[in-house]
């Protein structure tokens, strides 16, 4: 029954909703499709977006090696990619997509416009992250004889890692949204299910399920992204044990006074350090 429904969703449209038991067989493969679509897209986005973002920052005014003309060209191209709404970009790219993938339906066809829109988005995120690295750090490295490439890798990219990971999280979530839009042109995935069953057949059970799945998916991606940012930021990483220590000492007042004493005895030690 469920395979029959899948095969011709529109023709068999009735007022009867799918039962809850039938939904996993419909939604789980679609979730798999979404994950593949977003995963492949993000791999391409990172591979293209990082170099693009780096060139936007490096070639721009005040960058490591300013090239105003080249920067303006790259910036204009990226801005065009950013300015079209995804639905329009997707439709406009159909000939290009068919040229690259040989088809204009299914996952491969969705990945092409998603990767293009995502790359434009991500290159701006990378550029912004690199720009946020304090110029004083760059100055110090340059004053100690670092080459522009060394400054880029060991100062700019290295310091921007948490920020770029945070941006990657935002970007991935945006791609999940784009995959749902791509679903409307038959790309498969959660978006396709939501449109064909939830919207066109008014199947509330399916609609609710896709919403729950999407919310859960975004929550998981966000949690993973936050964890990655924390893991790469020393001052947020170290704060956790410190808070715990403060918590335990607060719970047992008798142990809090030794903690205070050790911290007080540590500061005079630093003061004596000062004199040699």
């Amino acid at each position: 029954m469920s395979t029959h429904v899948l095969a011709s969703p529109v023709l068999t449209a009735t007022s009867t909703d799918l039962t809850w038991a039938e939904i996993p067989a419909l939604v789980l493969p679609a979730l798999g499709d979404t994950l593949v679509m977003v995963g492949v897209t993000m791999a391409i986005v990172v591979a293209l977006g990082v170099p693009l973002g780096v060139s936007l920052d490096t070639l721009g005014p005040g960058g490591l090696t300013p090239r105003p003309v080249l920067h303006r060209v790259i910036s204009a191209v990226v801005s065009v990619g950013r300015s079209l709404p995804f639905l329009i970009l997707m439709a406009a790219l159909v000939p290009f997509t068919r040229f690259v993938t040989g088809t204009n339906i299914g996952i491969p066809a969705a990945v092409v416009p998603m990767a293009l829109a995502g790359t434009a988005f991500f290159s701006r995120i990378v550029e912004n992250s690199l720009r946020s690295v304090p110029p004083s750090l760059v100055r110090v490295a340059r004053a100690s004889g670092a080459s522009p490439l060394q400054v880029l890798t060991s100062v700019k990219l290295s310091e921007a890692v948490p920020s770029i990971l945070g941006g990657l999280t935002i970007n991935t979530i945006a791609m999940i949204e784009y995959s749902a839009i791509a679903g409307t042109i038959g790309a498969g995935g959660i978006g396709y299910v939501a449109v064909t069953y939830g919207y066109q057949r008014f199947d509330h059970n399916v609609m609710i399920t896709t919403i729950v799945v999407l919310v859960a998916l975004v929550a998981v991606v966000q949690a993973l992204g936050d964890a990655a940012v924390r893991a790469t930021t020393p001052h947020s990483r170290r704060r956790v044990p410190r808070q715990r220590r403060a918590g335990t000492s607060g719970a047992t007042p008798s142990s809090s006074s030794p903690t205070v004493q050790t911290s007080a005895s540590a500061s005079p030690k630093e003061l004596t350090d000062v004199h040699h």
Partner: protein
Amino acid sequence: MIELRSLTKTYGEGQHATTVLDSLDLTVSPGEITAVVGPSGAGKSTLAACVTLLERPTSGAVLVGGRDLTALPEKDLREARRGIGTVFQADGLLTRRTAAQNVELPLKHLGVVPAQRRARVAELLERVGLADKAHRYPHELSGGQRQRVGIARALALRPSVLLSDEATSGLDPQATASIVALLKELRDDLQLAVLFITHEMDTVVAVADTVARLDHGRIVEHGALVDLLHTPSSPLGRALLPRRAHAGSIAEDGATGPATQRSVWVVSHAGHRVPADWLVRASRALGTDLELLGASLSTVAGVAVGHAVIGAPGHLDDDDVEAALIGLGLHAQREESDAAEQRAAARTLEQPLEVVA
């Protein structure tokens, strides 16, 4: 050894050109700390940027160890910059690297092999007294400690010149004192030529061997710290040891009382051989007790410096008082009735130097 020869930096062109450095000459010898002071906008930051050639000077030369850096192409310049260690106001430590990794970075960029890097980093952190903090991240260190890591990093490539661009600004007095002590140690042990750019006069008195005052892109006053402090007419000397209000200035306005009968003298150390008991000796020589109304005395580089305001009984002859004081190696000047104005004038001279950047 670093020499700046008619260093000029102009921004903009034609009518809108602004000359920030105006044929500036300055030499810092090995084992010497030269402080460059000046108000905001005097060109201190530009000077620092030009010394490391992060900004190309418009004209003039920057010579480090006899080699003119301004003549070098960008690629050789990177190598030449390694001869100048730089410490900036913001310590500039990379937040995601430990103290040891921060110090290691210039060595890594130079291509030093890991074993040698580790040895050198350990040696440097030991040198600045942070051997036990090697694996701490910058946020776990105090401001003074971070600046020490900055100094260790600046020394990583064994430079002959150390440029300190407001390195102690923003630190608390204790941390400043520790950085000053460290810089003096390094000056002596490594025979570094230290160019110390700052706006903090107290720090200059503590750290400098010679002082240059920068104003409108020119060095308007330059000399050994002790000499400047021994020259009462030097605006820089006055700014370094500011005069304070004294009791005489209050009593002066009173028409009655003992104040009217006393002459007020401003006395300052004019040389190395002022005896510590000069007030007693002068009183004895004049046969009457002198009053101490206000004083600011201290020891700089083992030499007594400072100034005092004393009151002499009105019946004494001015020439006698002056002779007695000058005989003790002091510089003496009678404060006239328009003394208040003079003090105000002295204060305005000091003011532009004390502006907090």
